[in-house]
């Protein structure tokens, strides 16, 4: 039996989503810009998706910009919203995704600056820090609603309120949060919000940026007039249809998915805590179920992962980004973990399709693996 616990970084696509995509992979192949029949069909299909995505988050259709995923949407938001100003400061927390932090870093050579908010040991942003840092140079603030690796929920409404009270543009990365919460861009009071299909069992490399009406944006690419000039390039219509379907399914099934994840999370947590010395990171009552980071001090998580892998149990050590870089996760170090502690960390991200039995199977492999590793290290 194999068990997959790496769902927020890549997830199998929901068969209903594939089914919705197939007619557009096979049939409607024109581009929405063309004026002939096939082109007009494509244009109608994309407009339909735009309306449906907008309805899912209480936006208007023209506020949706389809992108090649969450990474592009974050890049577009950070670069696009900051560079409409000649200069200015971005405020973001130290636990934001790299697709927020790295674009900010690259803008520094153009004279823009970034103020990084520290977080506490649970990866939470302290509003007091935000209040102190925000000033007349601040043009943009960005916060992920849910911190990807550890599942911490940020006080996003309070952050938005504080940011907006200074007349500053606010961007929120809702990539992970979309798996859990009702998304209403009006009541959240965000100017821009990143959505990504992948954690919603949608196709890879599709997503969108919600951008509030009349918000100025400098596009990342130039070319054609697609997406009202805000994102050039041939529309990936099958991908857009897949993203839209995945988002709608998420909205419709949100409560059942949440319930299932809660049940799985409870079981996973109690089974993990049977292991002596295992610590779950940022384990607040508000942590989103199904995203769990933990560590067993003194154990190399990479070695552990290989042993799990041999039993066809798939988890991860921090984000895949961190694993390519062979660097400690910036999220964990920002929370105050030492590089050694970060290197002994293990991530489990679950889908509503996982089963209790898969967790038990994983534990039955994990426990002896840990024993062996411990024995080797003495």
């Amino acid at each position, binding site marked *: 039996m194999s068990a997959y616990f790496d769902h927020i970084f890549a997830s199998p696509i929901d068969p209903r989503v594939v089914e919705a995509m197939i007619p557009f992979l096979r049939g409607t192949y*024109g581009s929405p*810009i063309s*004026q002939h*029949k096939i082109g007009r069909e494509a244009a109608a299909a994309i407009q339909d998706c735009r309306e449906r995505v907008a309805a899912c988050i209480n936006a208007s259709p023209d506020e949706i910009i389809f992108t090649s995923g969450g*990474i592009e949407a974050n*890049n577009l938001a950070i670069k696009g919203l900051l560079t409409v100003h000649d200069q200015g400061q971005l405020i973001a927390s130290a636990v934001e995704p790299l697709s927020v932090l790295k674009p900010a870093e*690259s803008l520094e050579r153009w004279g823009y600056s970034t103020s990084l908010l520290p977080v506490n040991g649970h990866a939470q942003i302290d509003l007091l820090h935000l209040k102190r840092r925000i000033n007349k140079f601040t043009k943009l603030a960005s916060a992920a609603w849910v911190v990807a690796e550890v599942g911490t929920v940020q006080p996003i409404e309070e952050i938005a309120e504080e940011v907006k009270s200074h007349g500053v543009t606010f961007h929120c990365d809702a990539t992970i949060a979309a798996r859990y919460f009702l998304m209403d861009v009006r009541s959240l009071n965000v100017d821009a919000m990143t959505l990504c299909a992948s954690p919603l069992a949608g196709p890879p*490399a599709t997503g969108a940026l919600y951008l509030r009406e009349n918000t100025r944006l400098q596009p990342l690419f130039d070319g054609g007039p697609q997406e009202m000039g805000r994102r050039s390039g041939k529309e990936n219509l099958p991908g857009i249809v897949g993203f839209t379907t995945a988002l709608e399914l998420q909205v419709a099934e949100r409560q059942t998915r949440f319930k299932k994840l809660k049940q799985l999370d409870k079981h996973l947590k109690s089974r993990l805590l049977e292991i002596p010395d295992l610590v779950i990171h940022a384990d607040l009552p508000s942590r989103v179920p199904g995203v769990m980071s933990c560590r067993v001090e003194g154990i190399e998580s990479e070695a552990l*992962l290989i042993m799990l892998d041999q039993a066809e149990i798939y988890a991860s050590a921090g984000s895949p*980004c961190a694993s390519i870089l062979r660097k400690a996760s910036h999220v964990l170090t920002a929370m105050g973990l030492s590089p050694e502690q970060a290197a002994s960390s293990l991530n489990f991200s679950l889908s509503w399709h996982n089963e209790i039995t898969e967790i038990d199977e994983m534990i039955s492999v994990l426990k002896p693996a840990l024993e062996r590793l411990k024995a080797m290290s003495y």
Partner: protein
Amino acid sequence: MSERLIYFDNNDTTPLLDAVLQAMLPYYTRHYGNPASLHQLGLEAEEAVGEARATLAGFLGAKPEELIFTAGATEANNLALFGAAAYAPEKKRHLITSKIEHNAVMNPVKRLEKEGFKVTYLEVDGQGFVSPDDLRKAITPQTLLVSIVHGNHEIGTVQDLKALGGVCRERGVLFHTDAAQSLSKVPLNVTDDLVDLASINAHKMHGPKGVGALYVRSGVKIRKIMEGAPQENNMRPGTENVPAIIGFAEAARIAFANFEADTKQICAVRDRLIDQLLQIPHTLLNGPRDHRRLPTNADITFKYIEGEAILMHLSMRGVCVSSGSACSSKSLTPSNVLTSIGLKHEDAHGSIRFSFSKLNTMEEVDIAVAKVREVVELLRSMTAFIPELHSETEGHGGGYYKKKKDEI
């Protein structure tokens, strides 16, 4: 009216082949790992992407590590231009391009011009060719990069990359080409053709939309335009679009396996259409009429009538074509490509692009030609100016048009 549509807009985008779709589907549902993940599913995905990269690189004459996967050719063009410009030394802020580039090159170049780069827009001849001599003269010690489209999207002109690339290499400037239209249609070998940067995509050769690549010759330094995790050799962040990349390579494999036979068939279809349409009075072919034309492209001017009207009437009759390049067909300014080869505005407005794939047939050509004749006759019967009354020799309706307008 339930007859099958005739799709002659393949320079815009092509239908996905079923074999390509079948190759992609398992990567949506079964092999869904993230190539960056260390576990087995991740490694499988990484291997599959690596294989696809090697396949595509092989067809281009490149090394696998010289390809960066992107979300399409537009992104690849932007990455090439902004990426190279970002590393431009203070004294190297001159760019050279042609007047017939696609907007995905033209618009980034214009943005760079606004940011202070000097830009030379090279003229083309009546068939759309850039002269290597003009290029040589335009290059100065300040020149950083030259970007010339390989196969033109509108009139099908295929540039002599080797000649242009040779001039660039000799003068030590970077050479970028937008090869979105030409890959798998005409020979392209980035090494032999002395290209430093080349943009390609999948959906113009029956592959999926949403995926493309930029070839970056090893040693050429460009800066990424998106940041995040270090995928694609730290040049393009974001989890790789595995199913689409698999589809990209599969589409290329199929296209190159049948390259000669397909090219022959597509050329036959194209030439039959050109021959028959040129028999209609007051028509002309834009672009070259030899091996230096994309097999997939025919661009015809129908004088005295509006391309837009032809397009609509043909669409009603089940024939899909394009007027102007797809990316500007919603605007009213005439195509910059057609005016650059010397067409008058009114003739540019009367131009239609017919573009083909291997899925098109001779029968479709015959049906389409009959419908084009019908539409052209209909529209010309409704127009206020009749060329026969025109005193000038055939070929230029402009003067008469003006006179008639004054009378009204």
